[in-house]
């Protein structure tokens, strides 16, 4: 009888104490106040065959940024030098970025932060590029981000990459007209060809993602020069001019 009463008391306590589990995890998309740290995308348009050292200095500065900011920054290098890594896809992207920048003068090295959010063009020493980039990154890296990207099954299958990436919308506002891009990267050498972009694949435009919603995009990318080591997923505006969130993933 005592045991029965004790069990009943326990059950009553449990029922009284039972409420909805509070969704106060900042990374939980179902939490209205959720947000994520930003991972910044630096896209560098370079010409490593030029006699001047400007591009070398810019690439050295990018190495320093990687050392300083670690996983909070991802870097893609687009080569505009007639090497096999030069591509009309990258040229079109550069055209688009330059045309939508305050100064529409082309010239490498030209580094864009999160699309056209900020631009660092030119170099006179690695230190000057570090200084300019650091000023920007230190500001941008502390901004709250309302997207989470998660990649899975990023594989190299003989001649193509296949990958899946999930987008979660955090916070309390929906987002409209976004695009997920996958950039394939290869470290060709440990010098000036560390993060060479080999190709870009885009999802279809996602017209709307509600707060708390998760969407999944599948990618396949073939016709590459060689096997890439990594991919960057970056979520952009549908015109690709603004990058909202990025992640870098090793290819298995």
């Amino acid at each position: 009888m005592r045991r029965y009463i004790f069990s009943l008391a326990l059950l009553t306590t449990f029922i009284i104490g039972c409420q909805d589990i509070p969704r106060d995890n900042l990374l939980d998309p179902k939490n209205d106040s959720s947000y994520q740290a930003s991972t910044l995308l630096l896209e560098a348009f370079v010409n490593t065959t030029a006699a001047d050292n400007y591009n070398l200095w810019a690439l050295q500065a990018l190495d320093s940024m990687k050392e300083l900011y670690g996983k909070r920054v991802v870097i893609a290098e687009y080569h505009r030098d007639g090497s096999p890594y030069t591509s009309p896809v990258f040229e079109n992207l550069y055209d688009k970025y330059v045309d939508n920048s305050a100064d529409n003068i082309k010239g490498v090295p030209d580094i864009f932060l999160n699309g056209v959010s900020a631009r660092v063009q030119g170099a006179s020493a690695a230190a000057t590029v570090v200084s300019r980039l650091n000023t920007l990154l230190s500001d941008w890296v502390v901004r709250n981000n309302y997207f989470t990207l998660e990649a899975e099954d990023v594989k190299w299958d003989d001649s193509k990459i296949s990958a899946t990436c999930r987008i979660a919308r955090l916070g309390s506002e929906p987002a409209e007209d976004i695009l997920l891009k996958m950039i394939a990267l290869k470290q060709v050498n440990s010098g000036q060809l560390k993060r060479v972009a080999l190709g870009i694949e885009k999802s279809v435009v996602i017209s709307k993602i509600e707060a708390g919603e998760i969407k999944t995009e599948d990618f396949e990318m073939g016709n590459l020069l060689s096997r890439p080591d990594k991919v960057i997923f970056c979520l952009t505006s549908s015109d690709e001019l603004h990058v909202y969130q990025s992640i870098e993933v090793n290819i298995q």
Partner: protein
Amino acid sequence: MKRRIAWLFLLALFLLSCDAEKLFKKAPVIDSVELPERVNQQDTVYARVMATNPEKDALSYHWFVNPDGGVFIDPADGAETRWIARTGGGDYTFTIKVSNSYKSTEKSKIVKVIETGLPSVRIQKPQANAYWIQMHTYSIEVQALHGNGISKVMLYVNDEFQQENSISQNNIYEFTFAPDTSLLGPVKIKAEAIANTTSARAADSVMVTVEGIIPGRYALP
């Protein structure tokens, strides 16, 4: 007929309301005003007016200076007075007003106060340690001031003369400059202002860093 009478009535009213005596009296005539054309800051300026009075009453005088400033050390209500030039240079308009009991007349003369100090020059744009990129065009704004005005502002890049400008808006002299491929790294931007009258010169400079680029579009094969 009625309209004519109304007009006559109005004219009569007007004449009655006027001081008929004043109407036919003459104003004093200023024959000369003695004033130096140029003085230095803080100089004592002697001013004298010679005037004749067609009427036989006494004349009264009143001196004033525009823009306001400086100090009259004699009363400013005589035919002659002394004024201590203010420290700020520039053009000062002296006006003497001579009156008799009925009317007054006035005359003005400009006295240039020469400011011996240097112009004030400040490069407002670019800011020190700004980054410039080769082939891009940049605006340079220089604020230059002097009591006697600025005759021109000259722009130098790495001490090499580039341009001059004598036209300003609100004392801001604007230039544009596009660093070419010969400039790379730290570059000195200097602006030198020359004052009117004294040709006093003063300069300000800032350092900028010019970043090199390989310009243009890469021609795809």
